[in-house]
């Protein structure tokens, strides 16, 4: 009998569920994709149902599973250990923690302390089962991250580095992965956390903690290197101590997250840095760009030092990464550039959602003691295409319910037709097969456009995405052609590494460039791929592989044959503040509610001008 384990991550942010069968990730999904509530922290009842129904259907002789069919359910952290950390923190900071205590105590007293009951009730919502038979397991938060990074990696032995805001006590770890085992070697403990330092900078630069961190990364290249260095030195002199082994110490006089209701003690930061915290949605002045760059450099230095320490402790030649900080592709690339490891593999859902996969894998290999087979091919994540997919009948039913007008096109014509649309400047919603696992759209729930057209960045941003103008979009390129456009580097299938645009594709900047504000700077064409080239000539690169995503690869090839360019702009199929689309219904609604020109769901093409609502408006 195959071992079936359901992993769950929930009750903080980005709740998710994953089904692991005999150590293979069969299905994984974030709850937000179903509830349409971004970063939804609630029990992932929809994701659990999808794991059991759609994941079960994928098994040999498949059919929907019930909770009774599972060998165990693994939750991604230890609630009582987290509770212990909270209590000891309140005790250590008393009486400063009273405000936070009054907010969190009722939540713990009402819900989180009784996690087993919460999980049992949540699972009961997904379907009836025998509660007495249920085996609930609770691996530690950073063990879940480490397992999510090591077990699906293509390495039989590796160093593992996990870094995030906070788990129970640990905010980061260095482990050794070997065979089916993971040995924890070092732990960075709360409140001294690289993730929380980055979140503090996110907060001070006026972005939302736990979701705006990638905006800080996008803002950093606008910073002035010399002024950023000065800010970094100030932080290192007073607020942050970064040690040679990658561990750090944060002076809690400057931070409020341990006991208060904010990330930073703003008065202390203002006195140190010389400028006040930026209020959300206000102008992004140079000071905040400089601070973003200072924070980014600190994160990169810390990660490189952690990598060096991991190499020293394990002697391993390969590295696995997970934890929210591993979503920082600039820091990941800095670690790669340091040349400490031959290969680096990063879990595509490196944040807390990925804990669902890791918890289940840890249960399989460590609790049940099952051996591990190193995944065949690139890795064990199936290109991160592990979510729900929908049938033609479901697409047609959705279209009928909206009176939508569509044309069904066979594969032989689909890729060429879509490439024609893109080459003519149309922006296309591209919905294919299984939804992505993790925060990045990788060509199955993507908005695509021609990256060569100078006005495209502004057009996609203003008419469709409605996000901050300073962030450029990401490029997708076929793996075989990546070296034609980007400087040599490893494959980046999950958009977790940077690629630098080749020198010969770069264009000179106008004389008044330095006087432009950040959102205007990025609009200045600086390469032959202007819509995806950041101000420092880097791009958040996705290499597309025929083996893992043949349909997206075929589209890129069709586009290359028509235009000579194997690169497309790829941004997630959603609008600001909403999760990435999941169902055909979500895709059609997003298509009709934005300036998207066309929608392609499977083999169905929807042209905006032909849709009844568009005609009525026109």
């Amino acid at each position: 009998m195959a071992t079936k384990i359901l992993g769950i991550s929930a009750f903080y942010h980005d709740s998710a569920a994953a089904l692991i069968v005999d150590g293979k990730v069969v299905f994984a999904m974030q709850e937000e994709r179903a509830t349409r509530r971004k970063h939804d922290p609630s029990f992932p009842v929809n994701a659990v149902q999808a794991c059991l129904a759609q994941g079960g259907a994928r098994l040999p002789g498949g059919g929907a599973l019930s909770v009774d069919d599972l060998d165990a359910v693994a939750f991604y952290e230890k609630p009582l250990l987290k509770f212990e950390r909270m209590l000891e923190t309140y005790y250590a900071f008393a009486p400063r923690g009273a405000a936070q205590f009054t907010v969190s105590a009722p939540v713990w007293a009402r819900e989180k302390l009784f996690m087993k009951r919460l999980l049992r009730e949540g699972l009961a919502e997904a379907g009836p089962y025998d509660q007495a038979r249920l085996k609930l397991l609770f691996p530690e938060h950073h063990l879940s991250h480490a397992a999510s990074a090591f077990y699906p990696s293509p390495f039989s032995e590796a160093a593992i580095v996990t870094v995030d805001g906070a788990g129970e006590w640990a905010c980061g770890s260095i482990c050794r992965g070997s065979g089916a085992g993971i040995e924890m070697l070092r732990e960075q403990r709360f409140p001294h956390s690289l993730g929380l330092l980055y979140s503090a900078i996110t907060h001070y630069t006026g972005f939302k903690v736990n979701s705006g961190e990638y905006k800080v990364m996008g803002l950093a290249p606008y910073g002035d290197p010399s002024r950023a260095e000065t800010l970094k030195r100030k932080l290192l002199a007073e607020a942050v101590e970064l040690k040679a082994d990658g561990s750090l110490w944060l002076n809690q006089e400057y931070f409020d997250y341990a006991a208060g209701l904010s990330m930073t003690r703003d008065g202390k930061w203002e006195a140190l840095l010389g400028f006040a915290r930026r209020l959300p949605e206000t102008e992004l002045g140079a000071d905040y760009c400089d601070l973003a760059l200072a924070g980014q450099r600190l994160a990169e230095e810390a990660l490189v030092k952690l990598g060096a320490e991991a190499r020293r402790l394990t002697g391993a030649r390969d590295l696995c990464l997970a934890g929210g900080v591993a979503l920082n592709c600039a820091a990941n690339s800095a670690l790669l550039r340091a040349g400490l490891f031959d290969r680096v593999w990063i879990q595509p859902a490196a944040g807390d959602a990925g804990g669902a996969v890791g918890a289940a894998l840890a249960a399989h290999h460590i609790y049940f003691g099952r051996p591990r087979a190193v995944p065949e091919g690139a890795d064990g994540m199936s290109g991160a295409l592990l979510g729900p997919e929908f049938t033609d009948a479901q697409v047609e039913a959705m279209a009928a319910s909206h009176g939508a007008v569509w044309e069904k096109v066979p594969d032989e014509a689909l890729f060429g037709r879509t490439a024609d649309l893109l080459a003519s400047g149309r922006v296309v919603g591209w919905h294919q097969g299984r939804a992505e696992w993790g925060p990045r759209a990788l060509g199955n729930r993507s908005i695509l456009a021609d990256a060569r057209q100078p006005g495209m960045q502004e057009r996609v941003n203003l008419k469709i995405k409605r996000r901050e103008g300073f962030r450029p979009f990401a490029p997708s390129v076929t793996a075989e052609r990546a070296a034609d456009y980007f400087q040599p580097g490893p494959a980046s299938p999950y958009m977790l590494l940077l690629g630098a645009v080749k020198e010969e594709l770069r264009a000179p900047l106008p004389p008044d460039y330095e006087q432009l504000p950040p959102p205007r700077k990025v609009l200045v064409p600086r390469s032959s791929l202007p819509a995806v080239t950041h101000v420092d000539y880097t791009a958040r690169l996705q290499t597309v592989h025929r083996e893992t995503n043949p349909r997206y690869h075929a589209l890129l090839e069709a586009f290359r044959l028509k235009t000579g360019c194997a690169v497309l702009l790829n941004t997630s199929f959603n609008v600001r503040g909403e999760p990435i689309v999941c169902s055909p219904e979500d895709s059609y609604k997003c298509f009709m509610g934005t300036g998207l020109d066309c929608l392609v769901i499977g083999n169905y093409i929807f042209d905006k001008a032909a849709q009844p609502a568009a005609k009525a408006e026109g």
Partner: protein
Amino acid sequence: MEFLKDLLGFLKERKKWWLLPVIAALLLAGALLLLSGGAAVTPFVYTLF
């Protein structure tokens, strides 16, 4: 009952019996704070902190 068993097992494993009165106080305070949705209890809660 299961929660109490788990909690006591946890405190024993972690050798942190000193947390027991803190947890009891927290559960009491948490219960009060839960109830303090009604304004009548709120002044009493404030005197605790």
